[in-house]
C-alpha cells in the first residue's frame, strides 16, 4: 500500500492560498490571511517610517513628499482596503466563533464584503 502520496504535509502549507472550486468560506479564509500578512508587513514599515519623526522636521517632511508618488499612494490604498476587509471579516469570525449567525456565515460574509466595498470606495474618492 503506497502511504506517502496524498498525505497531509507541511509542504501543502500553501493549499489555503488557492481555494479553487472551494466554498465561500475558504475564500474568506484566504482573503483574511493575505490581508493579515500585508497588514503585519505594513505595521513594521509604518513603525520604521515614524522613526524619522525622532530625527526632527527635515527627514519626516521630506518623506511626506514621497507619499505623493502614485505607487506609494496605491500601496497606501491597498493597506486601507486590507484593513477594512480584514477588520470586517475578523468581526465575522468573532461572531461565528461565539455561535452568533454561525449557520448563516455566508450571508454574514456577503453583507460585510458589501460594507467593505462601500467604505473602500469612499476612501478611494477621498484619496484621489
Amino acid at each position: 500500500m503506497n502511504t506517502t502520496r496524498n498525505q497531509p504535509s507541511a509542504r501543502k502549507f500553501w493549499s489555503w492560498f488557492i481555494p479553487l472550486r472551494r466554498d465561500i468560506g475558504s475564500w474568506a479564509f484566504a482573503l483574511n490571511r493575505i490581508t493579515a500578512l500585508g497588514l503585519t508587513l505594513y505595521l513594521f514599515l509604518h513603525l520604521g517610517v515614524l522613526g524619522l519623526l525622532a530625527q526632527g522636521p527635515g527627514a519626516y517632511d521630506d518623506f511626506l513628499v514621497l507619499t505623493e508618488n502614485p505607487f506609494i499612494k496605491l500601496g497606501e490604498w491597498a493597506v486601507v482596503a486590507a484593513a477594512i476587509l480584514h477588520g470586517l471579516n475578523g468581526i465575522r469570525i468573532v461572531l461565528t466563533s461565539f455561535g452568533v449567525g454561525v449557520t448563516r456565515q455566508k450571508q454574514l460574509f456577503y453583507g460585510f464584503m458589501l460594507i467593505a466595498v462601500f467604505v473602500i470606495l469612499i476612501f478611494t474618492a477621498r484619496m484621489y
Partner: protein
Amino acid sequence: MTEQWNITLRIYRQKENEAPHFDNFNMEVSPDEYVLDAVERAWAFHDRTLCFRHACHHSTCGACGMRVNGVEKLSCITLIRDIAHNGATLKVEPLRNFPVVSDLAVDMGFFYRKMESVGARAVLPVMEAEIGNPPAQWEAEASQYIRLSDCIECGLCISACPIMATTPEYLGPAPLAAAQDHGIQRKPELLSIVDGEDGVWRCHSAFECTAVCPSFVDPARRIMDLRKQVVGARLSKLFGKA
C-alpha cells in the same frame, strides 16, 4: 427508455509500483443514476483492477467518499444529473489527506482512530439519542436534522478541511464534532484532548467541513460551540468554580 447520457469518467489510477495517472472511461449512463453506479460499472465491464470502496449505497456507511470534479462527494447519493450534463467529463479522485491504498480506495485508519480517541458514538437507538446537549439557540426545525449519530465517518470533512491538509496531528472536524456531541461537562477528560494545538484552536473557520457534510452534522457549528465550552471550562477552572 429513460434518458441516456454519454459521459467520460476520468478516474485517478495508482498502483503500488506505478506513477499515478488518469484513465478515461466512456460510459452511457442515465442522469438519474448515481456517480457510484457509474464507477461500479466501470469496474464491472471495463477494468477489473479498478479499486474503490463502497458498501451500503444509501449514505449510511460512509465508505464511498470521493472527490468529483475537485469537490468532496458521497458518490452513492450524488446524482449524475446534479453535477454533469450530456457529454461532460467527471474527474473522480480519492479523498485528500488519506493514504491511497490504490486508485480511489483510501486507508481510513488514522481518521477512525481519532474518532475512537474522542469516543465518538456510533449508531444510536432513537430512545437514547437525545440530541447531544445542543446549545440553547438552535432553531427547533433545524434540530431535528442535527443529530450527530448521523455522522457516518465518511471522511469528506477531513478531505475538505484546509488545515487537515497541513498536518495529520490535527483532530479534524468530525472528531471535534463528536467531542462536542458528548460535551465537556459530561466528559471532562475530553478537555485535555480538544484544548490544544491539534484541537479546537487550529480551526480557522473556513466552514468547508459543513459545506461538504452529507449528513447535516454541521461540524463547523459544533467546533464553534466546543470552543465556547472549552473557554467556559478554562475560565471556571481559573476562578475555581470547576
